[in-house]
């Protein structure tokens, strides 16, 4: 962390504030918005993104699970032989199509897709955070990671 950490931070609430502003209104006019974007604020924002992603995707997977088990629960299970998934569960349009028809496995796969996108969204938000910090070096680093992730998700045949 580059910003000098102000010594005691009892409950780790606010990020490090350089000099305690006398009143908020003057502080806003005299101080540019950039310094208020500390690494810690970025991290707290990222934590919210992550928690939301995990809760949302688990909820979708759970809904899919209920439908899937209600319709297919009594059938025999077979995972001994690898067949590969049908295109409905392998491509983004296929997954959306299956999920929209309220098919259990389609909904589960949509939830998993949401889960996979959660870290990607996190990286996207990091790009925004470093942009607000005016940290060009780290904007570049983060964009490289984002490019690799998007290539994996979109460039590997998921769109077909």
């Amino acid at each position, binding site marked *: 962390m*580059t910003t000098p950490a102000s010594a005691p931070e009892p409950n*780790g609430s606010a990020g490090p504030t350089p000099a305690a502003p006398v009143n908020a209104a003057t502080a806003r006019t005299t101080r540019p918005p950039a310094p208020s974007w500390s690494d810690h604020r970025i991290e707290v924002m990222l934590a919210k993104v992550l928690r939301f992603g995990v809760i949302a995707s688990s909820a979708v997977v759970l809904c899919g699970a209920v439908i899937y088990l209600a319709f297919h629960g009594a*059938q025999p299970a077979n995972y001994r032989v690898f067949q590969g*998934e049908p295109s409905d569960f392998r491509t983004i349009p296929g997954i959306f199509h299956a999920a929209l028809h309220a098919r259990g496995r389609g909904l589960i796969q949509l939830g998993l897709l949401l889960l996979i996108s959660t870290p990607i969204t996190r990286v996207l938000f990091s790009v925004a955070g470093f942009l607000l910090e005016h940290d060009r*070096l780290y904007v570049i680093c983060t964009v*490289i990671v984002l490019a690799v992730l998007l290539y994996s998700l979109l460039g590997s045949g998921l769109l077909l």
Partner: protein
Amino acid sequence: MTIFTFTALVASVSFLAGLLGSLTGLGGGVVLVPLLTILFHVDIRYAIGASLVSVIATSSGSAAAYIKEGFSNIRIGMVLEIATTTGALAGAYLATWIPTVALAIIFGVMMIYSAFVSRRVRPPEQRNLPPDPLATRLRLNGSFPDLEGRRRYNVQRVRTGFSLMFGAGALSGMLGIGSGALKVLAMDQAMQIPFKVSTTTSNFMIGVTAAASAGIYLSRGYIDPGLAMPVMLGVLAGSFLGSRILVKAETRKLRVVFAVVILVLGLQMLYKGIWGHI
């Protein structure tokens, strides 16, 4: 076995793996794949796909809790993620290409190594080392809350750490695990990052690393909704409960037990791989 019993059994086993993984800090992913292949006779490729999904879930879930404490260093995380994500892409492509028998053998070796790493005594932390000039240029050196206020640390050997993290990413992408054992080599030993910082930062990175290979697994049809669902929900619930009772539980004996479990499963994977029973 009907789908209903199969789902219930896989969910319970995953719950236990998640619980033990978070209580011991060794991660549940490393036991999941062998349990699914040995106990439930699931094809190893389906097992890896499901495990990968659960790794993303637990990493994202616990990262959210860790961040607030102010130990993790997002700059170290971002730089090393360049290495782990490209490594994960390479690992995922490799996994679709090499025979499952080879996957089982690599998995077994990795588990045996993890079991030993978890038992090794950590060497005492060296403090106040001069930083690697590259670490200073990348502004990786940081501080974290300690008993005596905030303690500063300087990051060592960035290049070595970066290369090792590429390997960690490749193993994660190939085997569908978080590969925490290799992270110990790279971040704790090569880069000399304080333990709490390296643990929380690597946990932050694991989700992004796993996401980099998950896209490829999904498009190759390795992620089956019927299997990934109980694994993901079970591991997530287990590790959530684990993080809640962690403060009260005596985990030292548990760590020994879990390390033995990892060792035994690792030997079994190795055996099955060598004799082609996978």
